[in-house]
């Protein structure tokens, strides 16, 4: 501990510790206390344990402990065929199954070098943008609950239910779809599906505005999130942040735009970043705003897809699905923009086997969470909850 120059004034003692935390001691000597938050804590969104060192109300360090949901996804991958991995990816980020499957399929398709039918691409964009909205609704709803607002949660889950019904109609499952296959999709969209989707888009537009009024512009919510957990853009990049977390720090980076895949180059959408008028750039509120704005962008992407999508005459969703997936020897790193950031798959193939030699999932939450220790230093305990909520972790993906 290093004493600051102005120390020793009466009974007040100011000191600075190695990690730059200023400690103010009054009359009573304060002691650091270890406070274990989790694994079963409602605001950790699953089973995450944070071991906090607290000095009164101030958190001096919060060390995350992971692995409570670890299933060794990567070991399983070495034991099943390439198409058999698709259902496993659903179980990583279970709130955005479609996006996970798609990221995995992108990686394998890159290695196989196959052409995907155009209608399949549009189907994939529609279902994963729907899934992105559903995922952001959970993120926003549970974030509101963390900060003590219950009504937005109910609103979010009511609207999410419509999306889950739509996806269930298309794939047969509510959350773990196994719908996007390597080279295609499992089934064509049901008749009238597109009609229902456009009905949903019309229904949801005003609801998104309502949600903004109820939560994003709510004074209590703003007071709890504005200026809390600020992450400067260069540090965010150094920490490997991606998705809404990185955009919340003001970096206009979206893989759909910057490393485009599928039909995204044909679609017109904005990459929302906070402009600093309503929030401090890089704080919890910015990250929340990015998610709220992204939902509206997803709606417009879906609308464009509906108008551009080729018809279903003579369409076979499995026409490009290979009978036997045996990529040539090589390595690939394929990635896609998930609701939580960049989900990447590093796949190594030996060219002989129908199983990958190595399949590593680069999980976006895992990387985003790794900044937790620095982000929480010097924050108050209630703000710690606001920070974890804003990272929007899904422990299934963190632990894999």
């Amino acid at each position, binding site marked *: 501990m290093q004493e600051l120059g102005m120390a020793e004034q009466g009974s007040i003692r100011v000191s600075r510790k190695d990690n730059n935390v200023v400690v103010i001691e009054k009359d009573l000597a304060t002691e650091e206390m270890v406070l274990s938050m989790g694994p079963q804590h409602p605001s950790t969104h699953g089973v995450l344990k944070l071991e906090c060192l607290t000095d009164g109300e101030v958190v001096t360090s919060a060390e995350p402990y992971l692995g409570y949901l670890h299933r060794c996804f990567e070991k399983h991958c070495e034991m099943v065929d390439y198409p058999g991995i698709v259902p496993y990816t659903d179980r990583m980020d279970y709130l955005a199954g479609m996006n996970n499957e798609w990221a995995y399929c992108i990686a394998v398709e890159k290695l196989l070098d196959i052409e995907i039918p155009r209608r399949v691409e549009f189907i994939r964009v529609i279902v994963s943008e729907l899934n992105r909205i559903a995922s952001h609704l959970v993120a926003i709803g549970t974030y509101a609950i963390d900060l003590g607002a219950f009504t937005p949660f109910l609103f979010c889950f009511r609207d999410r239910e419509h999306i889950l019904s739509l996806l269930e109609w298309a794939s047969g499952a509510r959350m773990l779809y196994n719908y996007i296959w390597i080279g295609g999709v499992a089934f064509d969209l049901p008749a009238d599906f597109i009609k229902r989707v456009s009905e949903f888009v019309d229904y949801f537009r005003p609801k998104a505005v309502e949600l903004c009024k109820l939560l994003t512009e709510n004074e209590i919510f703003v007071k709890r999130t504005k200026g809390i957990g600020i992450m400067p853009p260069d540090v965010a990049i150094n920490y490997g942040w991606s998705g809404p977390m990185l955009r919340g720090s003001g970096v206009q980076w979206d893989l759909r735009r910057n490393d485009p895949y599928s039909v995204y180059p044909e679609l017109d959408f904005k990459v929302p970043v906070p402009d600093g008028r309503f929030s401090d750039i890089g704080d919890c509120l910015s990250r929340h705003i990015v998610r709220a704005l992204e939902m509206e962008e997803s709606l417009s992407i879906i609308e464009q897809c509906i108008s551009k999508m080729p018809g279903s005459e003579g369409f076979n969703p499995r026409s490009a699905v290979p009978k036997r997936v045996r990529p040539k020897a090589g390595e690939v790193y394929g990635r896609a923009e998930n609701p939580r950031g960049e989900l990447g798959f590093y796949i190594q193939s030996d060219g002989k086997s129908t199983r990958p030699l190595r399949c590593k999932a680069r999980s976006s939450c895992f990387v985003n969470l*790794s900044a937790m220790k620095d982000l929480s230093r010097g924050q108050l305990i209630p703000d710690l909850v606001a920070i974890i909520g804003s990272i929007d972790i899904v422990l299934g993906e963190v632990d894999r």
Partner: protein
Amino acid sequence: MSDMEEGRVLPQSVQQSAAAYEVVREAFGPAVSDFDANEFMPFFEVLETEKWQDIALFMRDHPRLKFNYMACLSGVDYPAEEKLGIVCNLESLGVLGHRIAVKVKCARNGGSIPTASYVWHTANWHEREAFDMFGMQFTGHPDPRRILCPEDWEGFPLRKDYAVQESYHGIKVPY
């Protein structure tokens, strides 16, 4: 590489990676291998493992490289070569936009790789994960613990010759 000599036109992204590689090659010479210009994941290998940290810092800070973003770090087991390794996917995010992959290898038993977590913070947890799954040491790592498996777990699950332990605290493990 031979690919270029055959006259095949490389995609633009691979050309950019090749240009970036040339800068590294110029500075470090024999410490890095030749450039593998495949179009899935162009990469080069660091042959002198102990120089990895210098190369990493050089790649992050050189004005023509600016690899400020480590997208992924994957541990890999090479049982045939008796080696373990890491594969780092680097990218210059928002500055130059090029990408490249770097491989670093070490001996399979008791091998170690210099840590890159002071160069890219994100490497901290990735390296902990690679250690957890493969068992290579990262010298100078600020927090060299397991991350996903329990502290007292035996063996390194993603090694090709891994055999799961019979029991863990009285619980039968293989099912």
